[in-house]
């Protein structure tokens, strides 16, 4: 257990210090949301209507951004081999790394939502719903992305293929995330139904992500 705690602390430290990629995601999120009015025009009524969808898409793309470094940096400096050989189960180690990754890249996106929601003219109630759905949904994006990151690190030139592998798998999270956020704003379905399914998807990703990623690392790096 202390090994996992040390791993969590180390990954968070590496991410927030100089050279870590943690602030990049939020910056990218901000840029995406800023680009949308340039494409659609500054019609605040329109932006308010599609605001939850814009925020979700932006967060989805931003969460992809740092994913390829999740295992690649450890693979380059050899610490991934140490994790593979250690007595800690690889699945738990992968889950810990994913948790650290979410704390440093996913959580800032959720915290940034209130500011960005202001740009899109969202009501406080809708803003809260978007933030809540992202808080529940972004861990699923990270844990699904873990599989892609593990596959990509064994290929040595991950980059682009990572997005191609991960994005189709995130469709259910996007559907129920946006649906829950929208239903809080306008209806027609009650908030609870899509939101609980979103929670379920996140829980499923907690199981599938670490196991598949650990299998990919074991088979790919041996």
């Amino acid at each position, binding site marked *: 257990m202390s090994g996992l705690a040390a791993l969590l602390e180390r990954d968070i430290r590496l991410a927030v210090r100089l050279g870590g990629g943690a602030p990049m995601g939020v910056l990218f999120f901000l840029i995406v949301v800023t680009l949308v009015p340039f494409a659609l025009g500054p019609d605040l009524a329109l932006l308010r209507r599609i605001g939850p969808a814009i925020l979700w898409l932006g967060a989805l793309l931003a969460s992809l951004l740092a994913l390829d470094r999740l295992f690649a940096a450890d693979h380059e400096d050899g610490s991934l081999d140490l994790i593979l050989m250690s007595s800690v189960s690889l699945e738990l180690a992968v889950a810990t790394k994913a948790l650290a990754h979410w704390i440093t890249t996913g959580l800032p996106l959720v915290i940034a939502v209130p500011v960005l929601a202001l740009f899109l003219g969202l009501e406080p109630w809708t803003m809260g719903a978007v933030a809540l759905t992202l808080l529940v949904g972004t861990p699923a994006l990270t844990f699904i992305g873990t599989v892609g990151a593990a596959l990509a690190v064994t290929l040595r030139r991950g980059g682009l293929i990572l997005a*191609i*592998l991960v994005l*189709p*798998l995130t469709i*259910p999270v996007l*559907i129920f995330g946006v649906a829950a956020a929208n239903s809080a704003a306008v209806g027609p379905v009650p908030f609870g139904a899509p939101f609980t*399914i979103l929670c379920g998807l996140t829980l499923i990703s907690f199981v599938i992500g670490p196991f598949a990623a650990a299998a990919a690392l074991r088979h790919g790096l041996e």
Partner: protein
Amino acid sequence: MPLLDLANPSRFLSLVDRVLPWLVVATVAVFAIGLYQALLVAPDDYQQGATVKIMFIHVPNAWLAMFCWVVMSIAALGTLVWRHPLADVAAKAAAPLGAAFTFLCLLTGSLWGRPMWGAYWVWDGRLTSVLVLFIMYLAVLALWRTVEDPSRAARAAAILTLVGAINLPIIKFSVDWWATLHQPASVMRLGAPTIHSSILVPLLIMGLAFMLLFLTLHLAAMRNEILRRRVRTLRLMQAQAGA
């Protein structure tokens, strides 16, 4: 144990050489019967007219689009669990076939949809989930093409295939839920009991024909892949001997 016998690629190749001509003959024969039944015997639909004939191509393609992923998933288990040498060959050979059947399913569906719904594409639940399936096939193909070492590529593709096998039903459910939310009941539904036997029998024959076509193409593609790997190994040996 026949499956273990087939682990020897040479034995598999000789089996394929014996079986393949018969399969080709059977495929052509069943296609001839099926197309005759579908195009000339089966009646036109009283509402859709002759366009209903597209269904005899469209529906078997949709069946095979899903069946190919099942074949790939079983092969992926063979790769990861039993390390069967032919499993990754089978998975690799099935991926482009699955993508092709899925593409044909989308294409024929879109040609059928134009006169029926007035649009080549609608964001209906079934259409959208087949589109996602097509994208997943392309992702698997992209993964196969990224790695030059076949056995490494096989294990990476196997994990993606299995993750996809778990996720595809979830995606299907989500997309259905999303589609009913957006546009309720705009698409006609052919329930199983409402199909008359004059349509159902040709459809099943065409399904069998496409299944035989898949089997033929899959075995031929597996044979080609084994030969391609042998050529690759020989080239590598030659390069090493020359150096």
